């Protein structure tokens, strides 16, 4: 892996020394330290990673642009008049103003409102008002060249309608970056079919951004935290499932398969899960239906594409989530829910109905966000230090067990190398 080559790390300050227990204990300062956060911005978000910035369906026509983020850094994603997609910093070259304000828009050029410096949709500076001054007095010096003062351009790649950007100039291909095992389920959601945007959710969570990755590398929590899944038979500890991890350890797919005969809960699982109650029944059973529209053995795949993307395929409700860190103790989550062009009205409504599972008001989403808030509060306020990550022993990499934390250990093996910890 290219990141492994980064060994120029200065020694961590004494307080930031990884505990001797290896990967079975994660110290709290990984989630709370401003020094660690700064290093993450430099080496992860601004380092050798592909960061999700947009779906092409959001900027379908020449001139369309979107305000987005790489890490916490604001960027503009724009489709130029020839149709090519560009990503550049949302920071005027003149005085640093964040020049683009709308979430989405369409224009032939981008103009900073402060002094009207004007850029084309590739981020090139095309005009500076009063460049020659007034009556040849004032203005820019003769040697000022527009081409030296464009917006900072990022490296861009797309895969089947999904746009990624990187501050690194010499990135490997996206396909090599995520590896074949994770790419396989990515392509199930994004087979190249045109997407139909259904809308947006946005929320903050007062927790460290990595916690969101870890939550989706943790199959253990699914049937314990999410009583809804258990009570209504959507997922039970006995279902076939997998935690697929790429060779680098940073990306993953949490997958489960609904039995062909439909949701059911066996007696053994009922006994283990406090949440289970035979008395609870949903009135509207449409919610539980699964239209088998995908070429995949899994009915649910939740993908963590390092460092800032979640791809959600929960039965028929589809979405991506962009993680925008805001310091060590908070992140912003931008959700884009979608279906496919050509979906019938009924299929679209089925996706929307099933959407009640996810998001900041989702039956599962509420609980994930609350649990992560509780974890951050616990870490910030307590004297004890460190999480216990011992389920499944020292196992790492892909696992077909539910009760394991192998995916979290794999992530931290990678993370420690990148951060020099």
């Amino acid at each position, binding site marked *: 892996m290219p990141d492994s080559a980064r060994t120029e790390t200065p020694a961590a300050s004494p307080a930031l020394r990884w505990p001797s227990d290896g990967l079975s204990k994660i110290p709290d300062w990984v989630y709370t330290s401003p020094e660690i956060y700064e290093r993450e911005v430099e080496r992860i978000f601004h380092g050798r990673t592909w960061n999700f910035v947009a779906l092409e369906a959001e900027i379908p026509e020449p001139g369309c642009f979107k305000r987005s983020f790489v890490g916490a850094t604001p960027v503009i994603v724009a489709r130029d008049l020839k149709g090519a997609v560009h990503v550049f910093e949302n920071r005027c070259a003149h005085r640093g103003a964040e020049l683009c304000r709308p979430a989405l828009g369409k224009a032939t050029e981008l103009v900073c409102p402060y002094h009207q410096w004007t850029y084309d949709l590739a981020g090139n500076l095309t005009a500076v008002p009063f460049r020659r001054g007034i009556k040849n007095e004032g203005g820019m010096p003769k040697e000022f060249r527009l081409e030296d003062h464009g917006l900072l351009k990022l490296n861009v790649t797309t895969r089947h309608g999904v746009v990624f950007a990187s501050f690194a100039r010499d990135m490997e291909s996206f396909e090599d970056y995520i590896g074949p095992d994770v790419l396989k389920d990515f392509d199930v959601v994004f087979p190249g079919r045109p997407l139909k945007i259904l809308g*947006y959710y946005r929320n903050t969570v007062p927790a460290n951004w990595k916690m969101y990755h870890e939550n989706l590398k943790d199959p253990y929590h699914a049937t314990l935290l999410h009583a809804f899944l258990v009570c209504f038979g959507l997922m039970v500890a006995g279902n076939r499932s997998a935690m697929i991890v790429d060779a680098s350890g940073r990306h993953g797919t949490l997958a489960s398969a609904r039995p062909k005969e439909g949701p059911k809960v066996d007696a053994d699982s009922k006994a283990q899960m406090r949440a289970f109650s035979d008395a609870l029944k949903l009135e509207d059973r449409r919610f539980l239906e699964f239209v088998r529209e995908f070429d995949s053995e899994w009915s649910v795949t939740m993908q963590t594409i390092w460092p800032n993307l979640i791809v959600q395929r929960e039965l028929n409700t589809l979405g991506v989530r962009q993680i925008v860190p805001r310091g060590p103790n908070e992140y*912003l989550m931008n959700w884009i829910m979608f279906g496919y062009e050509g979906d019938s009205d009924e299929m679209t409504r089925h996706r929307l109905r099933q959407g009640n599972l996810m998001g900041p008001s989702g039956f599962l989403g*509420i609980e994930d966000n609350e649990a992560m808030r509780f974890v951050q509060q616990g870490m910030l306020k307590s004297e004890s230090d460190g999480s216990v990550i011992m389920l499944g022993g020292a196992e790492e990499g892909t696992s077909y067990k539910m009760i394991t934390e192998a995916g979290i250990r794999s992530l931290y093996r990678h993370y420690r190398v990148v951060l020099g910890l």
Partner: protein
Amino acid sequence: MSAPAADLRSLRLEIEEFNAEYAAVLDAGRVADWPAFFSEDAVYRITGRENWDAKLPVGLVYCEGIGMLRDRALAIAKTTMFAPRYLLHQISNTRVLSVDPASVVSAEANYALFETLVDERTTLQQVGRYHDRFIREDGRLRLKERHCVYDSLIIDTALIYPV
């Protein structure tokens, strides 16, 4: 606008009373009683103003039919894990927009939703507008559609109870 002004004024008062009762039920945490404000085929949705303005159909909460409203009430009351909290609605600026020939009343009202978690200060969870369609059943107004469209696009952590 088809009805005379006096009728519209009395309708507005009736909707204000309806909304006061609706808020009282939710503010008391009686989520199981909340579906009774809706008709059998009701649509209930909470969505950001960016979606409403762009005619994007997604909902943070998206219910078609009273069964889905009851299921949500059941899930929140019986299965969902979250920290205890109080909620308080303030509903104002009620406007009756029209009454169609089938007596369906279109109306709007602004809302502010305050949230108080144990050990923390009260926060403004969101401000928004109800876009409603009412029908009359057994002499009482019921919601056939309620779209809660919030201006506060960034939700703080989670929006748990119905708005």
